[in-house]
């Protein structure tokens, strides 16, 4: 059994309040903070490029760590400044014509859906939403029936921003691969809370931030690109520079052969090292252990919430992640979040526009989201429930 109590002592922030907003941005553990700070100190001491040269082995090792985390090869990894940059770089590199179809999930995140709408306006491509099964998860059987030769991309999120739902990403991968359709998986909420294996998922592209369950710094993210995609013609980022492509002749450029073609020359080494430290920290604890613990805390919380008068747990899906969402019959979510904040308990209100298609289909205005990580403990959840009972008048 991993030492979650030790992980807690290595998390300075737990002393200042009950932090249950790990799905937004988790708390960095000490080794991550140290990696970032040490590198900044080095830069201030010896200069930016000399610092990078001195730490080149450590910076290179970050690719290996991220690759090991998701069962990929280091040459399939690009380190990015954020999840959005990673996702956009892939999405905008794909070419769409009028009538081409993008298939997505009902739970799609606002950042991605706005990009779909923009692409639709620009090219006349069509956005089609894959229906959900009875449990509210994206339905692979329904997807199979939608496939035709106009489908140019399947782009879904694995775990949405607004609930415990886990879409069946691997089953969707099977469908995508059997038809040879590019599959872009937004795994922003998955990394660091569940084991991730790109071979099992069958995705061609996978994107994530570092700041969420991985506990890395803000300003870090990464992209996975399957090796056989890299050697396929036309696999180009939406926007390229002289790092991703070599300016070989005055009128020609050649993209480099690794996933780093999606990066730009300018980068932030301190945050990359922070990301690497976060990945190693998670791997040391073990993703299976983390998954078990996070699930245990989330399921326990759902049970307690369901017993409270007026509270409705709003999580969909059969298999669930560590995001717990609920509404109250009379009290707006924002009021509940504010009441909890007064008790020094940090949770998040998810607005309708976070995942518009889903919230509209389910007729939910906004939700309270509670996301407990492995370093949180039962006492903290008890404190949350106590404050919640007081806020809704059942205490």
């Amino acid at each position, binding site marked *: 059994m991993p030492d979650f109590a030790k992980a807690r002592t290595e998390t*300075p*922030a737990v002393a200042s309040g009950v*932090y249950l*907003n790990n799905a*937004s*941005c*988790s*708390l*960095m553990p000490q080794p991550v*903070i140290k990696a970032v*700070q040490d590198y*900044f*100190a080095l*830069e*201030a*001491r*010896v*200069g*930016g*490029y*000399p610092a990078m040269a001195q730490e080149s082995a450590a910076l290179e090792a970050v690719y290996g760590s991220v690759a090991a985390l998701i069962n990929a090869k280091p040459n399939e990894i690009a380190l990015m400044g*954020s999840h*959005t*940059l990673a996702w*956009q770089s892939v999405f905008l590199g794909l070419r769409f014509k009028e009538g081409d179809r993008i298939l997505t999930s009902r739970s799609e995140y*606002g*950042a*991605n859906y*706005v*990009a779909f*709408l*923009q692409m639709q306006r620009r090219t006349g491509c069509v956005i089609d939403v894959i229906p959900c099964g009875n449990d509210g998860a994206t339905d692979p059987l329904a997807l199979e029936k939608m496939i035709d030769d106009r489908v140019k991309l399947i782009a879904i999120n694995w775990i949405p921003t607004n609930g415990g739902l886990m879409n069946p990403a691997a089953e969707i991968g099977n469908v995508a691969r059997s038809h040879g359709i590019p599959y872009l998986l937004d795994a922003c909420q998955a990394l660091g809370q569940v084991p991730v294996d790109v071979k099992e998922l069958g995705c061609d592209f996978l994107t994530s*931030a570092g*700041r969420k369950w991985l506990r890395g*710094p*803000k*300003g870090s*993210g990464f992209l996975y690109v399957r090796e056989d995609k890299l050697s396929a013609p036309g696999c180009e980022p*939406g*926007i*390229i*520079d*002289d790092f*991703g*492509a070599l*300016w070989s002749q*005055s009128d020609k*450029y050649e993209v480099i052969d690794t996933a780093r073609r999606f990066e*730009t*020359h*300018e*980068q*932030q080494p*301190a*945050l990359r090292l922070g990301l690497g430290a976060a990945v190693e920290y998670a791997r040391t604890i073990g993703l299976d252990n983390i998954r078990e613990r996070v699930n245990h805390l989330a399921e326990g919380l759902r049970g307690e919430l369901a017993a409270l008068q007026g509270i409705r747990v709003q999580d969909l899906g059969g298999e669930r992640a560590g995001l717990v969402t609920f509404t109250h019959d009379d009290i707006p979510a924002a009021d509940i979040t504010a009441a909890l904040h007064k008790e020094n308990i940090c949770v*998040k209100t998810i607005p309708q*526009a976070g995942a*518009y*298609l889903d919230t*509209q289909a389910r007729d939910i205005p906004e939700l309270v989201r509670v996301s407990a990580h492995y370093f949180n403990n039962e006492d903290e959840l008890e404190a949350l429930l106590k404050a919640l009972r007081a806020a809704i008048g059942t205490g």
Partner: protein
Amino acid sequence: MDIKQVRSETPGVTHRVHLDNAGTGLMPKPVADAVKGHIVLEARIGGYEAEAQENERIEAAYSSVAKLIGAKKSEIAFADNATVAWQRAFFAQTFSEGERILIAEAEYAANYVAYLQMHKRKGCVIDVIPNDASGATDPQALEKMIDDKVRLIAITWIPTNGGLVNPAASIGKIARAHGIPYLLDACQAPGQMPVNVDELGCDFLSATGRKFMRGPRGTGFLYVRSKMLGHIEPYMLDHYGAPWTAPQEYEMRSDARRFETWERAPALHLGLGAAADYALDIGLKSIRTRVTKLADNLRDELDKIPRITVQDIGTQKCAIVTFTHEQIDSDAIKSAMSEEGINVSVSRAPSTLLDAKARNLTDLVRVSPHYYNSEEELEIFLSVLRGVTGR
């Protein structure tokens, strides 16, 4: 300017002779503290919570950057780096087959590869504005090139590979007279000289934080002229640049932040703001006076060393000094410097391929002093160089 004080606020000077400010400047203490302070706060209370608590200071960072270039706060977008800032502006332009982009000969590779990508995608044409006799982009030649096919003028103000300062304001006058959008890559300018977007007449200006501004790596910014904000749509939008207002609708923000994304690193933005404040406090005019003096002296001294050729072109020159040696290659000079704790860099031909080919350049040694460098440091550099080249 109190050199002693600025040096005392620059921890790096006690460890290295840092003469690569065109690569990355050394962060002064207030910049490093701003970044570290916010990382600590994030670790203590959480990322978004820290952002909310520091909201006023983050907003003030936009005002500081705006002030640095004579813009309005609403005209500034922050970016992960200068490349991303520039790309966001460039890819927001729309081109049809046969439409022309006019560029400078000293164009930076990052930009040129993007032109080629756009050419491949849209069939637009890339035309290089000729240089005048001094090697600077020639505004008169530009004037003669203008026709109704010209869709964009995009130049690098100060190239990566030398002291050249292109006549950005004269080019701006032509762009404005013909109503052609003007994108200025000013990566090397802010922090080493006064910058004023109205004098420059540019519609878009991109820059980085990590060079002469002395900000943290991982920062850059984009200026977008107010009148452009009426219609221009970024190539990449997310729900921050364009809130998802109804299931099938989005609406762009009215300010330049439509070019940003929701995800950001506030610690770095605070560092960028602190760097702008620091430069403004010292004064950009006195900074320019000092770096110009240091660089000019350096060129004079280099000229006196046998077999060394200073490679800077143009009449107006900045703090970037480049040279070659007849026999010793530039990497060997850089390594010899590094062994003595002196940071310089090497500018390679592929970084500015058009210029390198036109001038038949190989790799150049690039030395870029900043105001906090002392005369003694330059003397140390020169004496090591004399030793290396005198062997």
